[in-house]
């Protein structure tokens, strides 16, 4: 999955970083950034949709897997943009001339909306879990949530390559 993540992305690959490719002009570079970003955003979009389904159906394993995947995709996007300046932003005049600029902007908006919905569903799930855990804890429990905090993902785990949390 990790390989697949970067297989279509021209940034972050060993080939691109090793400098074996012929030097590209500014337009070519911007085009590459845009394509890579779009590819990563589409993966992020699919991952967010999958994690919403997992969250609604109570599939915690899938939810954790997808959340880790999203963190890594986010990291890949940041790396893609930071290694190449702010080139991938749709406000960049260089990118604005490319055909996929509108696709990129649309993908960013979809990811933003999905992220908002995901946050809203998570807050509902958290509210319900707090209620249930307080119920189960009995009368002696305080009002603070006895639900344990989520263990962060291992940064080196391959995307979607394993289940659960490190």
């Amino acid at each position, binding site marked *: 999955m990790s390989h697949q993540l970067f297989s279509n992305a021209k940034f972050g690959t060993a080939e691109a970083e090793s400098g074996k490719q012929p030097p590209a002009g500014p337009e070519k570079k911007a085009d590459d950034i845009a394509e890579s970003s779009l590819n990563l955003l589409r993966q992020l979009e699919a991952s967010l949709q999958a994690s*919403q389904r997992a969250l*609604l*159906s109570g599939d915690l394993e899938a939810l954790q897997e997808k959340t880790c995947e999203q963190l890594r995709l986010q990291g890949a996007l940041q790396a893609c943009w930071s290694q190449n300046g702010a080139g991938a932003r749709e406000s960049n005049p260089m990118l604005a001339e490319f055909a996929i600029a509108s696709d990129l902007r649309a993908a960013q908006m979809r990811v*933003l*909306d999905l992220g*908002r*919905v995901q*946050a*809203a*569903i998570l807050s*509902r799930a958290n509210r*319900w879990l707090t209620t249930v855990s307080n119920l189960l804890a009995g009368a002696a429990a305080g009002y603070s949530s006895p639900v344990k905090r989520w263990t962060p993902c291992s940064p080196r785990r391959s995307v979607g390559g394993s289940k659960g949390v490190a």
Partner: protein
Amino acid sequence: MSSLNASLATALSGLTAEQGALQATTNNVANANTPGYSREVPVFVASAPIIVDPLTLGSGVTLQSIESVRDPILESRIQQETQTQGQWTALASALSQTQVNFTSGSGDIGSAISNFFNSINQLSTSPADLSLRQGVVTAADNLATSFNVAANNLAEQRTSLNGSVEQSVEQINQLTQQIAKLNGQISNLQNVGEDAGTFLDQRTQLIDQLSSLVDVSVIPTDNTISLTTANGTALVAGQQSFQLSTQPDASGVQHIFAQGNDITDTMVSGQLGGLIQARDQEIPGIQAQLDTLAAGLANAVNQVQTGGYDLNGNPGTNLFNAPPASGTGAAASLSVAITDPSLIAASSDGTPGSNGNAEAMFALSTQGLIQGQSPTDYYSGVVFNVGNASANANAEQSASAQVLQQLNDQRSSVSGVSLDQEAANMMRYQQAYSASAQVITTINEMMQTVINMKTS
């Protein structure tokens, strides 16, 4: 003979019980597609045994009750999420309308600000040109109009939301009356041991409808329920409903009262909570930002204008009528004070050819006039805030819809009618009924044998 009669009674109890069970199945099948219907299940119990010393003989079966299958916790979650959905739906709808005022176009405030400063910039190239001066007056007028239109639209929207609050309160009152009436019917049936499933389903549906309007807490009591708002205001107590009412304050804003107490601020969820949030928080917040922008811009322009000289060499006068000192209402009342283009104070030294003051006025476009931001940046911030709030409300609405769908699916799996299961039940009851009938036939034959013994 007495034991044959007892067996006959036992077999008859089986017939009666299976008949009742079949009735429940029939009702389930008939209501397979009825919204909100909860499937019924027969509850069989063995009848009290008869002790014929030294034997204890079973006396058959009793159909104790027909119960509707419900999950109260699931229903509570559905009601809670329905409240949340009602709130965000109302808020998203209101913010969507608000957003129209901030859509980019020829008449929006952002364009009007840009056009105004562009006209001043043009004037600075030829400060004595009357047509360019007229352009400034026209652009100022357009700027004032764009503020007026946006502020008036927001005020109209608040008035419209006020009407929606009144309508919601009327709907709440109708629903609480119906729920109280159903409480009475349910109590009457349950007190005599009858199944009130149909009325319970109706009440659940009405509570769902009420939940979409207001934040409701359901408190079960003996054979009935009480409903309160989240802060404890009674809506229904058994068979009595408590009506809410609306009264306008001095500014015409409708407040909600329950038994003489103003509970407007305690309405935080449901459609009513969303309407009040939009009416009393979101839209006034946007109005205040527009007022700040209008007042800041007008005061800054007036200050530069009065520091210069008009085409006749006279000291400049206000370009915009001075906004209220508090700033409140500045956007709605913003207007241009001059109609004569020669009164534009483009000159900084009183000579007609001077453009010093026009340049100073144009420089305002990039200065941090409003809370440290340029007018355009501040307006962009307002647009962003409105768009962000609207997008968040839409996302919350979407999340609620998805969660509700999931919960309703769960309710269907618990309380919904499965035709396959009902077909199996029907066969089961039919076979049991046939078996009981066969027992009766056998007892009849046995009795006939006994009678024939006596007559022969």
